[in-house]
Structures are given as structure tokens and as C-alpha cells.
């Protein structure tokens, strides 16, 4: 697959680019609601990759950062409404971590709308659709994050040196 040079400048974003959102949905509420949305044929943007976790409290901030590091443009976390957590405290922990994580991400140059926490009960299939669609639109407007590409760009300065070193070796043998 050919890699076209892409920048985050909106004018030069490839027309084919579509946002990639990684979603962590809690088993008891949000995932069930997503199932409901599916069964009820409520459409939502296909740009989402859903990962089921037993509780939104299972979402380690490392997962969010890892998702970005692997190319996600946005991360959505879905959990039970406050007070309804199957494990009692889990979603409160998620909320606290999410709020601190947002501050961290701001310092590191990742825009607010790229991470979102939403409380979605098991019966709220429509809310799943709505949230996903909203988020995809917001992230589409922000443009790609494409960290994997960024890392490659950053590391090109190293590769240059390696190539230099290798080409020097070749000269010696010639």
C-alpha cells in the first residue's frame, strides 16, 4: 500500500481520509446499548472500533495513549451513569481519570474533542449512535492525528544518519 505524504494541514488532507475512533464500551451499559442500536438498525458511522471492557473503570489511561500512538484520531469511552456502575465505584474512577487525562493531553498538544467520556445506559441505543456520529464529525473537522506517521517523520533524522553510516561502509569495501 503506497504511503502518500500527508500533513495535518486541512487543505492538503487526502480526500480519502476518514477519522478512526477507538471506543471502549463497558459491558453492562454502553456495549449493551450499542447492541441495541445494532439490533434496532440504528445506523452510525463505521469509523469506530469498539472494544468491550467489563467496566469503564477498566480503561487504563495507557489504553487511550496507546490508541493514539497506534494511529487513532479519537478515543471514546462509554460507561454506566453515575450511581449505576455494576461494580459500584468503577465509573467514578473513570471520570476522575478522564478529567486529569484531558489536562495532560492538553499539555501534550492533543485537542479536547479527541477524547470523550459519555454515560450511556443499556437502553440508550440511540445515544450510542448520536454520540458516535457527533464525535466522528468533530474529529473529522480537527483532521487526522496520525501519530504513527508523525513518529516516522520525527525519526527520519535518525534514519538519515544510519543511511550515512551504511553508505560509508559500502564505500570502504568498494
Amino acid at each position, binding site marked *: 500500500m503506497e504511503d502518500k505524504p500527508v500533513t495535518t494541514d486541512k487543505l492538503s488532507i487526502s480526500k480519502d481520509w476518514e477519522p478512526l475512533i477507538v471506543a471502549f464500551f463497558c459491558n453492562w451499559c454502553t456495549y449493551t446499548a450499542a447492541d441495541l442500536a445494532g439490533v434496532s438498525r440504528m445506523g452510525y458511522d463505521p469509523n469506530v472500533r469498539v472494544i468491550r471492557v467489563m467496566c469503564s473503570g477498566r480503561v*487504563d*489511561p*495507557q489504553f*487511550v*495513549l*496507546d490508541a*493514539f*500512538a497506534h494511529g487513532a484520531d479519537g478515543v471514546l469511552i462509554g460507561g454506566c451513569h*453515575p450511581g449505576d456502575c455494576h461494580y459500584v465505584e468503577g465509573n*467514578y*474512577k473513570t*471520570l*476522575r*481519570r478522564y*478529567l*486529569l*487525562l484531558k*489536562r*495532560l493531553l492538553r*499539555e*501534550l*498538544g*492533543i485537542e479536547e474533542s479527541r477524547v470523550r467520556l459519555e454515560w450511556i445506559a443499556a437502553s440508550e441505543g440511540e445515544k450510542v449512535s448520536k454520540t458516535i456520529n457527533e464525535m466522528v464529525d468533530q474529529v473529522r473537522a480537527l483532521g487526522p*492525528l496520525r*501519530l504513527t506517521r*508523525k*513518529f516516522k517523520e*520525527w525519526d527520519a*533524522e*535518525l534514519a538519515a*544518519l*544510519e543511511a550515512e*553510516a551504511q553508505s560509508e561502509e559500502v564505500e570502504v569495501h568498494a
Partner: protein
Amino acid sequence: MPDKPKIAFYWCASCGGCEESIVDLAEDILEVAQAVDIVFWPVAMDFKRKDVEAMPDGSILATMVNGSIRTSEQEEMAYLLRRKSQILIAYGSCAHTGGVPSLANQFSKEQILRYVYEEAPSVVNEQRVRPQPRHQHNGTAVTLPEFRGLVRSLDQVVEVDYYLPGCPPTPKLLKQAVLTLLSGNLPPKGTVLAPDTALCDQCPRKETKPTDLKINEFKRPHWTQIDPNTCFLAQGIICMGPATRSGCEAQCISGNMPCTGCFGPTSRVRDQGAKILSSLASSVNAREPEDIEKILDGIADPVGTFYRYSLAKSLLRAKVTR
């Protein structure tokens, strides 16, 4: 009489503290000097780069490189020492995870060069002279290395065999590492040569750490009389202990100040800053967003606090838009 095994030390974007930790072997250094031949150690010995270049590849048993990688010269030395050494050890926080200098990853190369050479209050440089990589002198040139776009840990540049964590590592851990090397009983490649538990496990204040920690306020150390016998977190003072590897013998704690995370994470954690963020946030004693935010306001500098030594090795590595 067989040749003694050869050892080398080098420093990249370093402060020299790791060198001091080696000298802090104190009396043990005489024993070490008996057992090995130190063939390169710029802080203490006059061997030159060309001496290293002249050595056969693989002729050095082990080289301990400290300091992070910021310039092309440091990359060259890393490649050179990798070739000449059988074992390459990332020594100290900077080589292990980027160290304090990797906080520079929140800034761009241009921001740094402009401030240092033009804007700093004590600089007078009307002609805006900047370091140039090449300066011609008659038929030849003198050179300066390239200043890279970001700071890297040693293993982001070359293959590393082992790590000795800490800012700096303790002489005790160093001695253990040297003995291990000489014994030939090498641990699996990639091992961090320090215990694999969190600092809380070794901390003298461990008994006072609540199992169900509830934080009502984050206190900056000078806002309160620090109780020398109680867990810092229980006092509302941020301590990196839960997300930091032990092995340092809790020295900062014995100085009545909290851990700042210099030993890096345990093997079970990929991103130290994210992990302590998770731990501290979970303990915030509030449920409403406004109340939580109020308590979080007490964390003045999330990046500098959570990633003080490990920004280069974090999952995001740097401020992504610089």
C-alpha cells in the same frame, strides 16, 4: 596472564551525576579496577574517541552509556560504542527513559535554539549568531553536531542489552550489575537491573499508606509541615512511589521529600506517567465533575510531575504539535 575484561563509560546529554555514582563506589572502586580494564571514561580518564574507533569490534565486554540522545554526535557515539561492545547498558534515567532533559520534548528545536542564543535575558547576540554544523578553516572544516528535533532514550537509537535505572543509579545496584556481568550469569536481554516491585513496597512509611486512599486536596510540599513518619500521599503530597520501581532504598523519602519517579516504571507498566495519573486520579475524593476539577487544580504541572524522567519513552514521546 589473560587480559582483564574491558569496560567503558560514556555520557551523552548527561549531567555527570551517573559518573559520580560510579565514583561513589568509593573503596569498591579499587576492587573494580583490579578486576577490569577501564578503556574509556571521559570524566576521569584521558582516552579519546579515536582510541575507541581503533579498538576491534566487540572487544569491550560492557559499556555503560548514560545521558539521553539529543545530538548527532551522541548518536554517532552510541552507534560506535554499540559496535565495539558485547554488552551495552543504558545507565541512569536519561539513557533509560529520557530523563529530565526529555522535558525539552514539549518544545520545538527552533524554540530552544532561539531562546538559548537570542532571547534569554543574559544573552547579548545582536547578530543572532547560531551554532553552525560546519565552519571552514582554509582547506578543512571544524564541525558541530546537529541538534535533533527531540530527545531520545538510548534504546530509541541503538539496541540496548540492560538498563540500570535511577537519577542516578545507586552504587549498590551498580556493584551488583558489575558482579553479574563478570560472573557470566547474564539475565535475559532487556532486563532492568533493579527489583521489579513498586517503591511503596520498600518505603519506610509503607505502614501508613491507606489501602483506600482518599485525596481531598493536593498539597505542594511547602504548603504544609511534612510529617516525617507518614505516607506522603496520605498527607496529600504527590509521590510517584506507586508507579516507580524500587531499588533506590527510598533515599528521597529519607530526606523527607516525596519520590519524583526517577527509577522509571516496573516491568508491568508501559507508560509511567499515565499509570501514576490513573492511580492519583482514582483516589480523588469527589464524584461531581466540578468538585473533581477543583481538587485536580492542585496538580500544577501534570507533564513535569508525572513524566519528569520519562517523557521520551512515554507513549506519546513529546508534545505532538510543537
